[in-house]
């Protein structure tokens, strides 16, 4: 296995590291837990920006390596959508489990969890010493400044993609108002909102089956 490429600003460059020289075989390969760990560790170490950035990188990597084909990936991704937890973490765990059972599951989880954890602890340890330097202060303020815009964009895209009916609009509006008002009760209120939204779906034929692709 080649070592981590330091200047891997391009994801293509990164994900091709360790790729089988013969190219992806049509038959699914069975990597060892160590290989699974190492792939997710590398992706997690260099992919900044959370699940929506990481998941496509993961998909491309496992397809190139021939570990999973596209349709298996989508099937697995659809399943993770119904579970709580960071997207990238769940996807890595499911891929690991698919390839190597419990050991693969653990390898996927650790691969995703360890690199950011190490990075964060280092940053947090030095932060209070550097946070008052103008350069660092300005950098952090700048990075935070776009957060409302990014969250609004995410919300806008979700609202645009969803197929709306009167009941769904009602459930979403009630849910949003309830959550905004919920304060420290956000978690139980969230589950109540999901239950309400599920009731609002009723028993009528669901319009949304098979729409779980990213």
């Amino acid at each position, binding site marked *: 296995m080649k070592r981590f490429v330091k200047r891997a600003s391009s994801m293509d460059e990164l994900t091709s590291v360790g790729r089988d020289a013969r190219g992806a075989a049509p038959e699914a390969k069975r990597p060892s837990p160590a290989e699974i760990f190492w792939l997710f560790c590398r992706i*997690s170490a260099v*992919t*900044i*920006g*959370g*699940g929506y*950035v990481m998941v496509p990188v993961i998909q491309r990597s496992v397809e190139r390596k021939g570990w999973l084909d596209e349709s298996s990936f989508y099937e697995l991704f*659809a*399943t993770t959508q*119904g*579970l709580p*937890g*960071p*997207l990238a*973490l769940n996807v890595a*765990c*499911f891929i690991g489990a698919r390839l190597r059972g*419990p050991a693969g599951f653990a390898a996927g989880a650790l691969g*995703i*969890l360890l690199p*950011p*954890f190490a990075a*964060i*602890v280092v940053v*947090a340890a030095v*932060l209070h010493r550097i946070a008052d330097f*103008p*350069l660092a202060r300005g*950098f*952090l*303020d*700048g*990075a*935070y*400044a*776009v*957060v*409302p815009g*990014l*969250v*609004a*964009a995410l*919300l806008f895209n*979700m*609202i645009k993609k*969803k197929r709306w009916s009167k009941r*769904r609009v009602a459930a*979403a509006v009630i849910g*949003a108002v309830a959550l905004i008002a*919920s*304060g*420290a009760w*956000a978690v139980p209120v*969230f589950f109540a909102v*999901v239950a309400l*939204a*599920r009731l*609002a*779906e009723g028993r009528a034929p669901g319009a*949304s089956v098979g729409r779980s692709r990213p």
Partner: protein
Amino acid sequence: MSTGWLEMIFAFAKIGAASFGGGWTIVGIIHASVVGSGWLSQAEFADVVAIAQVTPGPVALNTATLVGFRLHGPLGAVVATASVVAAPLALSFIVAVAAHAKLRDGGKLNEALKTGTIGLLAMTLWGLLPRLYESWPAALASAFAFVAVTRTKINPLWIILGSAAIGAVGRLAFG
């Protein structure tokens, strides 16, 4: 900063159980628990989120790790991270390894979860709004980020880093 360990573990375990739909949805819940109960100030939380998004890895996890670190040092970081992933990992393990289930009937439940996620995002956004009228450069940056992300296929990371760079230069130039 006198948060007990048990309170922190319980809070993050709860947050982890409700973390559907990706990182930004749960940043709002973390904000409600952490700033709402006075564990961190609004300014400290802003720094935590800023760092979480420019360090590698899922934003939600990074936020949890950093809050844990702020509250109880390195061990706090380990415990907060473990607490926030406990429920997701347990559920994933059951579904992926033990049951080999597919949740393919997910249609309606998934739709309901998405509705709930929209509510969580609205809540996250609501908590962030005061920021926009406190600072016009931030409002401008956010407006630009919104248009860029909804109109183009640009990777949000470049917007975050670009804004951070402008912030750093601006702070050096104008103090």
